[in-house]
């Protein structure tokens, strides 16, 4: 058997090779691919962390001379390897998410809007791809814990501040409408960054105590508190998303979860068809409950009065959700669900107030939407990118729509008025599914182009 120092040297070399194989992906990334600044920040961080790790490992044995020190190094190698294995999961999906494979202009528009929140003016969102059809925000406390464990051993950099990581399904890289779900994940980032979880957990504990007294066993209390906290976080993120981007979020939500299955043949709500959409489970509140709360924000932010006039079954779903009462919801499989739900319903107003206090600097985009959507829709109807809207016929003055107002206008056009566009196109059959899908994609591309143009025009200060 070779001496201990040599065994550990072997392990160190093995780790060096492993870290090199990951870090080199970053360093030698495809020069033909372009990335948004947030991704570049993430890659630079991983490159520096990789270099620091390799420096530390290649120094072995350094000043170590004792067996106990070699064994300590062996433990550190184990920690470093496990931590790099964790980081490994993010690198390739982030490299895949170059500007051709993510909705770059939408991300930039959403980031600009997010940065209007007090204290978040420099936040960046790095996008990576997920295999599952799911959007998610990487829990930064977990990521930081792992990254910090590397940094503390190798004296490496910490994850840059105000850098969030959001996963999107790889197939949705160019979609605008479906990616209106991304603001929910931005909400998760804000929720974590503001430490809302502990405040909500305390509120949940208090409400459980009020509703159950001392009847709950300690383990049940912990479990149910966890459930209420989880529901609250999901609810907060929904409300935040609506506050950030308006009704395009619930529209995308309805589209993703096929919310229209709750409607009958007359576009009226059918409780029979909506079965399953009213049941809480251990992770999520039901769709109709979530939509009902989203409508509350649409009302508060003054979207609703105009939105109800939109001729779309998506709006019918929202109207149905709005009409629902607490007693319409259930938590099957739970002992004494009524009291659990009652406790949660008492927390809901607190979530709303948390949202209000966190988003004071974030005005509603509704005002701009109300003044701009008719013009934006007219441009889309005529197959024109709506980035410079003629203010008044006969005058050469042009306005750029607000990006958020633009996305909402485009979504409204897509659900309500695609036929108006098709009416201008030779041989385009409104009743043909493929044709509608093809032209809906064009509307998305024009919207993305308009957001890009608006960014340029705003930078130039031109009107």
């Amino acid at each position, binding site marked *: 058997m070779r001496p201990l120092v040599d065994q550990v040297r072997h392990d160190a070399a093995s780790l060096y090779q492993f870290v090199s194989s990951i870090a080199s992906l970053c360093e030698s990334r495809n020069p033909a691919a372009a990335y948004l600044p947030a991704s570049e920040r993430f890659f630079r961080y991983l490159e520096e962390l990789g270099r620091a790790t390799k420096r530390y490992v290649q120094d072995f044995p350094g000043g170590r001379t004792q067996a106990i020190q070699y064994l300590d190094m062996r433990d550190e190698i184990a920690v470093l390897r496990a931590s790099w294995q964790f980081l490994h999961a993010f690198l390739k999906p982030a490299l895949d998410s170059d*500007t051709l494979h993510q909705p770059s202009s939408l991300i930039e528009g959403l980031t600009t809007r997010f940065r209007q929140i007090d204290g978040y003016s420099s936040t960046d969102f790095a996008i990576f791809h997920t295999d599952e059809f799911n959007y998610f925000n990487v829990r930064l406390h977990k990521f930081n814990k792992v990254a910090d464990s590397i940094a503390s051993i190798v004296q490496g950099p910490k994850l840059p501040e105000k850098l969030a990581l959001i996963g999107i399904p790889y197939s949705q890289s160019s979609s605008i409408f479906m990616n209106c779900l991304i603001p929910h994940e931005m909400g998760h980032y804000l929720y974590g960054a503001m430490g809302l979880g502990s405040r909500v957990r305390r509120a949940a504990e208090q409400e459980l105590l009020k509703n159950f007294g001392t009847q709950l066993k300690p383990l049940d209390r912990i479990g149910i508190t966890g459930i209420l906290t989880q529901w609250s976080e999901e609810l907060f993120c929904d409300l935040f998303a609506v506050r950030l981007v308006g009704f395009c979020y619930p529209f995308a939500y309805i589209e993703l979860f096929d919310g229209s299955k709750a409607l009958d043949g007359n576009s009226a709500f059918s409780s029979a068809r909506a079965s399953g959409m009213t049941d809480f489970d251990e992770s999520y509140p039901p769709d109709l409950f979530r939509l009902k709360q989203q409508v509350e924000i649409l009302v508060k932010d003054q979207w609703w009065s105009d939105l109800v006039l939109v001729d779309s079954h998506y709006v019918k779903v929202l109207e149905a959700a709005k009409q629902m009462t607490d007693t319409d919801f259930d938590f099957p499989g739970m002992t004494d669900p009524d009291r659990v739900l009652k406790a949660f319903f008492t927390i809901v107003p607190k979530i709303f107030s948390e949202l209000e206090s966190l988003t004071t600097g974030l005005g509603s985009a509704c005002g701009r939407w109300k003044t701009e959507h008719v013009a934006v829709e*007219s441009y889309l109807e005529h*197959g024109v990118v709506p980035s410079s809207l003629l203010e008044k016929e006969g005058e050469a003055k*042009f306005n750029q729509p607000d990006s958020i107002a633009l996305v909402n206008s485009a979504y409204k056009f897509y659900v309500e008025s695609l036929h108006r566009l098709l009416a201008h*196109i030779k041989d385009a059959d409104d009743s043909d599914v493929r044709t509608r899908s093809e032209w809906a994609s064009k509307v998305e591309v024009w919207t993305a182009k308009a957001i890009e143009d608006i960014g340029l025009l705003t930078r130039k200060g*031109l009107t």
Partner: protein
Amino acid sequence: MAVLSRRAIDDRRRLAVGNKSSLVITPILENDAFDEDSIDLRLGTHFLMPQVPPQPFVDPNSPNASVQSYLRLHIPLGSYFVLPAHQTVLGATLEYIKLPFDISGQILTKSSVARMFMVIETAPWIHPLYRGCLTLEIANVSNTAILIYPGTPVGQLILFEVARSEAAEKLSGTYVGPVYPEPPVLRSPGRILSGIGLEKYRHPFYGWIAEKELATEINQAMAKLTADEQSKVKAIIRILQSNGALPSNNPATALFK
């Protein structure tokens, strides 16, 4: 056919987008983009780089040949793209254009770009009612590589009035609304040439093909078979197609669709 003056261009831009006589060019990033008789157009950020196709030539019979022949690239504003000597790339204008029903356009290489021996357009004519970013067939015809910066002015758009009164026509869907450079829409030469009465054309792999004759022969042969036999033949064709023995660009394949 008169070239539109700046004043006439401005008048057209002041019309509502739904007006068939209106002209849209967006974004206009500098007020001096307009000259007395032309408008400067900038290079966009998306490119289609020709790449070596899976076959030794681009076969217009192959449905994916057009897309497979290019590599898509995004070069953000501020960054550059190197176009080697004697190489070509498809780009697009940054500006999205909507032409009125009675206006044609022509895009020309800006003289400062042309003097670098770079040509941005070889199919410069734009028909009335066109809308979209213009695809540019960029060629570096010089002996040195050229750095190309998206966002810089590369072309001049000149507009011409066309004497026509019919404003009610619909838009042709094929090229409505491109934002990125468009690969060519390839059409089977057999179909095109049959329009002028030619019944045969020569395929590089399969020799002389008479599509109509072939179709008639196949249909006659199939008609002699029972339904069961026909489905067996179709199953064999599917197997041959799926393992590549009967490629999708074989004209006979199309006859079985």
